[in-house]
């Protein structure tokens, strides 16, 4: 997992009342993000670390920091598994 995860920008995204549906035109799959997952995904801007996102989540949703950490870790794992995040380019061999 990247230190500062970046969401894919080629997905079709529709925000619906604080949740979202995402369409991946490459995999031809549709995903649904609930309110928390959408918040986390929107913060995957390539600059914020998982810890930054967890802090923002705890502040915005008024949840315990430990739980926010756990939620962010799980959400990022799921997003990575579902290819919703950009994969960092492999470093060229020296």
């Amino acid at each position, binding site marked *: 997992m990247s230190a500062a995860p970046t969401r894919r920008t080629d997905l*079709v995204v*529709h925000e*619906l*009342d604080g*949740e*979202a*549906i995402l*369409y991946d*035109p490459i995999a*031809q799959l*549709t*995903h*649904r*993000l*609930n309110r928390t997952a959408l918040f986390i995904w929107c913060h995957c801007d390539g600059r914020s670390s998982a810890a930054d996102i967890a802090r923002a989540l705890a502040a915005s949703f008024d949840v315990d920091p430990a739980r926010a950490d756990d939620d962010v870790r799980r959400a990022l794992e799921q997003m990575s598994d579902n290819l919703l995040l950009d994969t960092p380019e492999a470093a060229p061999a020296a």
Partner: protein
Amino acid sequence: MTALTARPTPLPFGPAGAAPARPRIRAARATRAYRIGAVDVALRTNLTRALAAFESHYHWYAQPVPATGAMELTVRRVWRGLRPRCVIASNDQDRFEVAARDVLPHLEWAMHWQSMSHLRRYYQVHAAVMQRGGGGVLFAADPGNGKSTLAAALLARGWSYLSDEFALIDPDALLAVPFPKTICIKCTGYALISSLGIPLPRRRAYHRPAKGRLCFLDPHRVRSAPIGSACPVRHVVLTQLVPGARPSLEPISRAEAAFDLNRHAFNFHDHGPRAIDLLAALVRGAECFRLISGNIHETCDLIESRLR
């Protein structure tokens, strides 16, 4: 002297000693045209029994001439030894070969089958569509969850009928358009339908291995002027039948509804990325619910009290 001259009719026999040929009359296949809601259908057959069976349900939609680009259904007879069989084709592709008595259900299924490819311009969802007060209600469900029974019950209560399992959404106008095929009632729903006071044509029941015994209910036999018109979808209802359960209708988020509707779509990929735009636009204009359907009377009462 008489003005009438008679000519002996040639007997249908071949050369001396040969087996007698089967007497036959060949006629060009007549084409009948129908506009079933938004869907043009041309039926080509010279089999009067097949035509009569189809006409018994669809004469309401007869048109003088077939429309250009109509869905083509053909019924022709073939002989298997001494047994006559009927081959049902849609758009020149043979689909079924059945006994004459089973032509109607297979014409229905051929039409259903052909709809998938013929009506690609529409976004197709496995859902019943009913209309009340100008707005459409989409009851999306997996097979066996009572969409047709629910459609018949609401029809008997004065709702208008668009489809019992084939919701067609016009992607440009974002309207549900009618495709009012006959309502397919499985034998497990006979008692329910009868309890609603709807006369079922049980004597014209059919059997299909995957579905069991069933019959087709013409919506015009339920009430007059039963067919709705193209309309915006005002409610999306994800439906699940739980026999014996107390019916419930709970609001769900639009994202949840869109995600599940996608699962019930027949041709999501025909529309590519645009399909997701369409789904989002569809649910944005609708209230979305999850229905647990049980007793049909209580379920209808609940729907009528909540979906206004």
